[in-house]
Every structure is written in C-alpha cells, then in structure tokens.
C-alpha cells in the first residue's frame, strides 16, 4: 500500500504583512497541491490523505472554496481524501456542505463521519473528522472498535495534538499517543503541526506543504508512505512540495567586523528570490557599524522575497570615534554624550533607553554621515 500523507494546506490564508507580495504566497499554497498530485503520480501513490485544515477558515470566499477542488480535479487517477480539521470543522451548512453542493468528482472523498473507508481490497482508512473547532474528547477513540477485515491494513487519519503543549486549562483536539496500539493501526496520519515530525514509528505529522510562518518548517513537505502489509512497519520518505523557504537566523554582533561574513552567509542560503528570511540580531554595535548594517540590510531586503529584521535585542555602543564623528566638543557632542549615558543607564526604563539609542543613531546619521558626505 502506497500513499501520500499531507496536511495543513490552509488554503485562503492571508499574508497582509507581505503587502503586494501576498498573492504570490496565497497562490503558492495552491501550487503545492499540484506538486503533491505530480509527486503521487511519480511515486505511483494512488491515494493522498490530507489530515485536516485544508482551508484556513471555515468561511472562505466562493473562489477560494473552489480553488483546491479545481487543482485536485486535474489528477483524475489520484484519490484525494479530505478530513475536516480545527480550522475547517464540519458543521451543518458549513464549509463541507458547501463543497458537497459543488458535487466534487468521485476521486475526491470527503470524510465527514467517523467510519471505515476501503482504500483498496486490503487497506482501510479510519478517518476522524472534527465537527467543531475544539473537541474535548479524543476524536480517534472510535478507531479502537472500528471493524475491518483481519488482514486489512488499518490507516488512521486525524487532526489534533498528541500532547498538550500549552498546559493551559483543558486542551482541545488531543489524541491519545497510544492510539495506534489500541486501535491496531498500521499508520496514523496526523495533521495540525506545521512541522514534519515523527511521534512514533507509525505516527507522523506531515507538516504543511507550503510553510506559512516563521519559526516552523523551512520547506514545504509531504510524506510518501509505503506499507507492505498488515503489521509491517511503514516506510517514510519526505518529499519537498513548497515554493518558498521560511528561514529564521539568529546573529550576534559585537563590533561590526562580522557584518560582511553574516551578509555572505545569508546570501549563500540560495534561491534568494523565494527566501523569506527572519533575521534576529542581538549584541552591541558601534554607531558606524550600525549605519553599515542598515545599508547592508537594505541591500539584502532587495535580494530576498521578504526580509524581517528583529533588532530589539541589538544595542548600540558608540565608540569615541563615533562620538568624535558627531563633534569633538560643543552642543552636539554634549547631546550625544547625554544620549549615550541614557542608553547605558540601567536604572532607566527599557523603552526610554531604546528610544535614546534610536535618537543617538539618528544624531549620528544626521551629523557624522552628513559630514562624511559633505567632506567627500
């Protein structure tokens, strides 16, 4: 038995922080469906199991509702098994009823109730759809008593967390980690985490085929699963499906000498036009280096698809040369000294220190850089 396990397509997700580039990211999520279809054909996998959250919202607009269906329609030989997740639970007159009214083709299967579904003569799918956003009983519990032929492969399909990571109050959509054993599953295909992750030998989160946030998986992924027969361990092969890479990098700065090196490393990430880079900077920089860093960041932003820089942990430490660049003496130098003292005064509120730092950088840019330009 061979199939593709995927999840968390989150079709219709908005990316307003990307401005005019938003549509590219939305389209990339649809493109990932086509890639999965192609991969299924390539690897002779007749079934694609989508473990929930096909849609980002349970009320997408009419176009976005149809868009993934239209993509799947292109692959007539592939059976697409769609499971409602917490983003798109199955509720009366809700999203799934709207899709049903669209009369999807027979190769698109909507698993809206918890009952065994025969994938072929020797494999059964046990889907656990969510009918509300937060389900406080284990939606997979029914699998324990689900009847299938003794020699048939049992594949669970569910959406939720294996453990309660939040530890805050009563967690929702929790799935018993021992479910494969209790329900005699050969494989449990899970969705919810946007990170490809193995929980147990036969329990996997597929991750999202197109990443949508920083801090998650960098590349869009789906899993190719092969199960030889009842009781055989599954063979897992990750497949790349995403267009954009979401990369987070932490860099520490000390005197600015490392700027060129960091710049080179970031640029060597490759395929920059499809790189979404979150850069977290910390450490301390002299003013001249800070200006240099800003210049390099502008260049880098032009090179990548999107650059987000977090400088909250970065402080400036003006050197004597920095201050002399502002002035050797006099009013402006005195002002710079005072701002520097404010930045270094730990008794001051953090916001004021940060503001003083900005003011000092601003003074440097307005005086030292200007003087340098005038001199040149």
């Amino acid at each position, binding site marked *: 038995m061979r199939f593709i396990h995927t999840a968390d397509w989150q079709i219709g997700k908005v990316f307003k*922080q990307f401005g005019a580039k938003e549509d590219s990211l939305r389209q990339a999520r649809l493109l990932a469906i086509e890639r999965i279809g192609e991969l299924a054909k390539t690897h002779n996998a007749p079934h694609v199991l989508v473990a929930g959250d096909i849609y980002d919202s349970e009320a997408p607009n009419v176009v*976005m509702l149809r868009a993934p269906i239209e993509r799947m329609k292109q692959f007539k030989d592939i059976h697409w098994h769609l499971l409602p997740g917490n983003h798109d639970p199955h509720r009366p*007159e809700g999203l799934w009823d709207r899709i049903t009214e669209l009369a999807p083709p027979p190769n698109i299967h909507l698993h809206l109730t918890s009952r065994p579904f025969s994938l072929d003569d020797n494999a059964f799918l046990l889907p656990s759809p969510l009918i509300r956003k937060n389900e406080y009983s284990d939606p997979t519990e029914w699998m324990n008593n689900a009847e299938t032929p003794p020699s048939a492969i049992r594949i669970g399909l569910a959406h939720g967390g294996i453990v309660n990571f939040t530890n805050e109050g009563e967690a929702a959509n929790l799935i018993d980690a021992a479910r494969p054993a209790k329900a005699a599953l050969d494989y449990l295909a899970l969705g919810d985490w946007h990170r490809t992750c193995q929980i147990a030998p036969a329990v996997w989160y597929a991750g999202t085929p197109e990443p949508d946030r920083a801090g998650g998986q960098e590349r869009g992924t789906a899993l190719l699963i092969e199960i030889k027969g009842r009781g055989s361990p599954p063979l897992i092969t990750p497949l790349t499906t995403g267009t954009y890479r979401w990369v987070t990098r932490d860099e520490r700065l000390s005197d600015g000498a490392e700027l060129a090196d960091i710049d080179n490393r970031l640029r060597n990430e490759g395929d920059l036009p499809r790189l979404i880079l979150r850069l977290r900077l910390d450490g301390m920089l002299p003013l001249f280096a800070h200006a240099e860093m800003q210049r390099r960041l502008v260049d880098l932003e032009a090179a990548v698809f999107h650059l987000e820089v977090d400088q909250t942990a970065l402080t400036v430490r003006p050197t004597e040369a920095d201050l002399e660049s502002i002035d050797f003496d006099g009013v402006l130098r005195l002002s710079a000294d005072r701002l520097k003292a404010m930045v270094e005064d730990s008794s001051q509120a953090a916001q004021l220190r940060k503001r003083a730092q900005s003011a000092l950088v601003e003074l440097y840019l307005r005086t030292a850089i200007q003087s340098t330009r005038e001199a040149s």
Partner: protein
Amino acid sequence: MLIKGLSVEGIGRFTKLTQVEGFSNGVNVLAAGNEAGKSTLFRAIRACLFFRHDSKGQEIRDLATENSQLPASVELSFEHSGRNYAIRKSFLRSPAAVLSENGSEIARSKQADEALWDLIGVGPGTGRTVDDGAFGVLWVGQGSSFTVPTPSPAASSTLNSAIESEVGALIGGERARKTVEDINAELRRSLTDTDRLRNDGPLYRATSELEQCREVEAQTKQKLSALEHQFIELAKLRDNHRELTNPTYSNQLAGELAQARADLEAGRIAVQEILRLEAEEKSARRALDVAIDRLRQHREVAARIDSSRRLGKNLSESLPEQIEREQHARFALEHTQQQLAEIELQLRSMSTDEHKLGKLLNAAVRSIAKGEHSRRLAALESAAAALIQLEAEIAQIAIEKKHVDYLNDYERKITSLEAQLSAVAAQLDIEVSPSGEGKVTIGKLQPKGIYSSPIVTPTKIQISDLAVVSVTPAPNAGLDERNAIQEKESSLLKLLKIGSPAEARALLSRRQELEATRASVLTELKTLGAPKDPTTSISEAKNALAEIDATVQAALHETGREQLPPIKDIETDKLALEQSRIKLEARRASLEQTRETQIVALGEARDRRTGTESQLLLVQKAIEDDVTRYPDSARLAQDALLVSEVAVAESSLQNAAIVLEARRSTAADRAEIERREARCQRLEQAIKNQNDELIALEREIGRISGQIQAAGGDGIGEQFNAAQEQCLLAARELERVSERIASLKLLRDTIVGCLIEGRDRYFEPVRRHLRPYLNDLFPGSELEIGDNFTIQGIRRDRSEAFNRLSDGTQEQIAVLVRLAMGSMLSERGQTVPIILDDALVYSDDDRIRHMFDALMRAGRSQQVIILTCRMRTFAPLGGNTLRLHTLETH
C-alpha cells in the same frame, strides 16, 4: 578711552568754532534745550573717529553746515592707555586729518585715519567706513535707546572675545540649531507647533489607518461571531428537530389521543340515553297534567252553565225600562232642532238686508268724490292741449346750442385774424376835399373828408375817371385762414337756412323759452299724477266718473229707491239691524248647546239598551254551547271517568322517574365529560403544536442555513483574518511612527537642552555684569539672553517676553544691557565711553532715579556721557556738567 575735549566748526548749527568743555571721568551730562546741537555733536564724534577724512558720503554731507563755504571740522582729544591724543579732521572742503600724541603730530591724512583705528581697536569694514566695534554697542543715538542692542559682526566679535576670554567659546551652536531645525521640520510633518496631530501627516495617517482597521476588524469579528452563533443555533435547532421528529414520542401522543377520544364517545352515548329517558319522564308528566286539566275543565263548565242561566234571567227583566228611557230622549232632541231651524231663517233675512244697506252706503260715499274727479279731468285736458301746441312750435326751430357755439367761435377767430391782419397791413389814408367828394370810390364806398383803413385785401381806388389806384397787400397766411373760417361759417348758415349768426342766436333764445314753458306744463301734469303722455290719465279720469254713476244707479235699483238717502240715515238703519242679528245668534248658540246634551243622553240610552240585548244573546248562546257539550244528563258520569284517567297518568310518571334515576347513577357526569373533552383538546393541541413547532423550526433552520451560506459565500473567515492582520500591521506602523517621533523629540529636546545650557554658560559674564544694574531697577530679576545677545525676556516672579514689556521698561532694560556690556568690556581693558543721546524719555520719576543710580554705578568704571534736553529731570543725576563754548574767531 577717555574723551577729554571736543571742538567743532562748520558742523550743523555750529558755524563758528564751538568747544565742549568739562569732560572728565565718570558721568558727564550735557543738558541743553532742543536744537542746541547735542545730536550733532554725537554724530561729529562718530564721524571723527570712524569716517575717513576724505569721505563724501551722505552722512558726512548731512553733518556739514548747510551752504557753508568752510570745511566741516571736528577735533577730539582723548586719553587712551595713559596717553593723550588729539585727532582733528576736516571734511568736504580741504579735507585733512591730523593725529597727535601728547601734542606731537604722529600721523596725517589717510595714515592718521588708520592709525586712529588701530589705536582704538576697530577695523576697516566694507566701503570707506570702518566697523565701529564696541562703540556701536555703547553709543546710543537719539531715538535708538528703545531698541535692544544688536551688535554688528565686529561688535559681536568684540563682545564674544570678551566673553570667551572668560568662559571659552560656545562650540557647535550653529550646527546644533541647524540639526534642531531639521528635526523640527520632520516633526512638523506629523505635529503642529502645539504638538497636535497634523492632518495628513504620517502620524495622523497611521492613527487613522489603525482606527479604520480596528473598525473593519470589529465589523468582521461581529459577523464572524454572528456566524459562530448561527452554527451553534443551527446545531440546537437540529437537535430540537430530531426530538420533535422522534417517532416514539409521536406514537405515544397519538395513542393517548385515541383512548381519550373513545372515553369521550362512551360518555356522550350515556348522556344521549339519559336525555331520552328524561324526555320520556317529561312526556308522562305532561299526560298527567293533561288528565288533571281535563277534569278541572269539566268541572268549570258545569259551574259556568249554572252561572249563565242566572245572568240571562236578570238581563231579560231589565230590558223594557231601558227602551222607554231611549224613546223619551229622542222626542226632546227633535223639539230643540225645530227651534234652531226657525232662528236660522231669520238670520239669513237679516244678512240680505245688511248687504243692501252696505252697497247704498258705498254709493253715497263715492258720489261725494265725483266733483273732484271732474275738476282733475278738466285740468288734464287743458295741460295736454298746451303741451301739444308747445312741442309743435319747438319742432319748427331746428337750430341747436352747438350750432350757435360754432358760429360764435368762427366769429371770434375771424375777428382775431382780422385784427392781426389790420395790425400788419398797410394803412390807407385818404383826405377827400369837398370838391372831390363823390369822385373817389373805394369799392362801393365813397369816402368824405378823412378816410383811413388798413389794406387787407386787394383794393381799387377809383378817382373819378382820372385814375384807378390798385393796392394789393403782401400775401399773408392769416388772410387765407380767415377766408377758410368765413367759408365754414357761410356753409353752416346755409345749412341752418338762416342769414346771420345774430339770427341764429335769436332763434336759439326763442327755442329755450319754449322749452322752459314746456317743462312747466310737464310739472303741472306730474302734479296731476299724469305721465308725460296725459291721454291715459284723461281716459282713466273719465272711466272713474262713469263707474261712480253706475254704482249709484245699481244701489238705487237694488234698494228700490229713487235717490240716495243721506249717509246718516243709512248708518242708523244698519246699526239697528246688526243689534237684532246679535240677539238671534245668542239664542241659536244656547239651543245648540242643549241639542248636544240631548244627543249624548240619547246615545247613552240607546247603548245601554243594545248592550243589555247583546249580553243576553251571548249568555243564551254560551248556555246553549255548554249544554250541547256537557248535557246536564251526562254531567256526573263524565266527572267519574276523568278522575280515573288522572290516576293512570300518575302511575306512568312514577315508573319513568325510577328508570331515569337508575341510568343517571351509572353514567359519567357532566364534569367527567368535560374533563374527557379537555383531555382530547389538550392532546390535539399538543400534536398541533408539535407540527407548528416543526414547521417553525424548519423555517428557522432554513433561515439560519441561508445566513451561514451567505456568510460563507462572502468569505467572512478570510475577511476577519485579513482584518486582524491589517490591524496588527497598522498598530505596528503607528508604533513605529510614534516611536520615531518620540525618538526625534528626545533628540531635539536633548540638543535644545544642551544648547540652552551652553548659551546660559556663555552669557554668564554678561549676566554677571548686568545683575547689579538690574538689581537697581528690577531686584531679583534675571534677563533671558538669546543668540547674538538678543534679549528674549525677563524673569521676575515669572517669565515675560521682552516685546510684551512697556516701552519705558524696554528702554530701561536696553540701556542697562549697554551699561553691562560697557562694564564687561571695561573689565577686559577695552574702556569705551558710553554715550546716551536723549535716552530714558519714558521713565517715570521713580524709575529714572534708579536709572541715575545705575548710570553712576557705570560711571565708576568708565566714562558715561549723557546728552539730554530735559535739564530739570536730569539735574538729580549729578556728575560733571558739560558746557558749550563758542569762540568768535578760529
């Protein structure tokens, strides 16, 4: 520098050599009246020190005495660095300059100018003059004492040098100000000068954007909440729907209803049976009532027969007496009616006689008016004849007043025109001698003696057969007009068939007389009651006379008389006849009343008799009928039979009552039936309610489903996510812009703070020298000094802007600042005299005394020269008195 002497010649009003005497250390006062030349002396000192001797600028030309042929000369002697110097300059004519030291000439001409500048520490400026350095600050010309000293570059430099030698330079001030200006320029894009949001600025836009985003987010959130609520509501409705459509519950309800209906039907059948038994019992009771009634009726008839027989006997016995009474009443009535007929005949005869007497009286009365009618007829006939005559005469005269008016008008115009023609015509004067009489002919006229006439028309004068003189006047338009009018006059006279206007006027007068007479005749006719045409009235008068005659004849004929008796006799006869008639009428009324009474009595007697007869007949008939039905012979047997029928009916009734009571005791009562009915209704209503609720529920499910579908179609989920992200972005942008502004403000405020501190430190020497002077006038105050020594305000108990102070206070502060600057320069070895020309003009008595104290304080360290026209006011100042001394010869 200490000025020790000044002499001028050819300067302003000082045409002759004039010396100012009395200069010394400390305060020097030159008090002189207006136009004494004080300001001229001030300008002369300035020219002598700072202008080149060969300068011909406007200031120099203004300084020189007007139309003077002499050079404008100034000589100033002064002490500087312990040495005595004298500079003498002649301007305009024969320009020259000589500088001497301790009486010896040390430079001349251009070298003298420049050597002097070197000596007193000023440098050449642009043009031909020099910058006057500290002198520009400490020397105050007339009218300049109100302004705060604004040092020229050289003066500033001097002051700055003095300050910096004490506290060092203020570095970077200009760059700092430029930086602050740049920052403010950026801040002004977002904020107004009063730190309010500037419309369309970045901060305003960011704030507005966030507000809009929050509004959209709230709206979409509300819609999403509504959608969530609809999902929950729909789930509840579907649960309700499942419960309502549960067949177990429906079947149970239907079973209960069937049982309730069966119970109700059984109850209703029992009720029907009881109703039937009740009807039977009622029927038995009715049969008993009938039997009792028949028995009672039988016994009543028997009693009635006996009673009728007694009544018939009584009626038969009273009938003959009643017949006799009726006959008597009829006879009395007939007698009364006969009497009434006779009286009626007498009254009709009297009425005929009264009518005839009336006619006779009428004829007598009318015959009296006959004479009056005859006289009126005669007057009418006479007036009618006169009227006919007058109208015939008036008709003969055709002329009217308008014709006479035309003719009069023509005559007046002709007369006027002829007068005009005569006035302009040639005058013909002929004197005919007695021998010539009859030999001279003018037209048909043969003049005698002297003849004069104007020539209006061509005239021929024949003198015997000796000559014919023709005189033709010049053509004249008036003549033609007169001829035209004469032509009109002739035509009108011809039309009227009269000869002249005079005849016309006479005829008109006659016509008017006739018309007046006609009017009086018409008035008379009106008096007689006749219209304009009296014929009808005459005819009516004749008819009236004939009618009177006919009336009289008719009356005489009817009464059979030959002639009319006197009216008095007729009236006496008529009165007697009326009295007789009244008496008869009274008698008739009395008889009529009697007759009415008799008629009533007759009617009553007849009614009584007929009533008795009728009653008797009825009684006899009733007896006959009753006896026919109940013969006297069968009366007892019938009574016994009816008594037995009553007994049978009583027995049937008792049986029916027993059966009814027995059924009632076993059947459901009314309350039980009502309970069963209520139960049926309740169960039927419950089933109906269930159906209604189901319909409503399905309708509500449909409605909410529609709303969910619509919200889904609108993509409300995406909209909300988008709105949330937009909100987050807008909040970040607002935070970024706000933080940027806060950062810029912090930078600006830091720079400005440093700038103020630096400036305060820089101006401290000035403030230190100023403090004692300020304390003289404004104890405890501090001046706020801005860039380039500008005075921005004064701090007393509060800060006050300099330009908000009174003129007097502004002037006093300005002078004090100059004194302080002088003091500061003096301390640095740059002793420059302070010269005040006509200052402190707005100071009150108290302030000016304090100003004198300040001036005296300044005089301790440097020379102070006061030029004033207010001799009495400045007398308390003290100091050295300067005097002007004019020399007769040079």
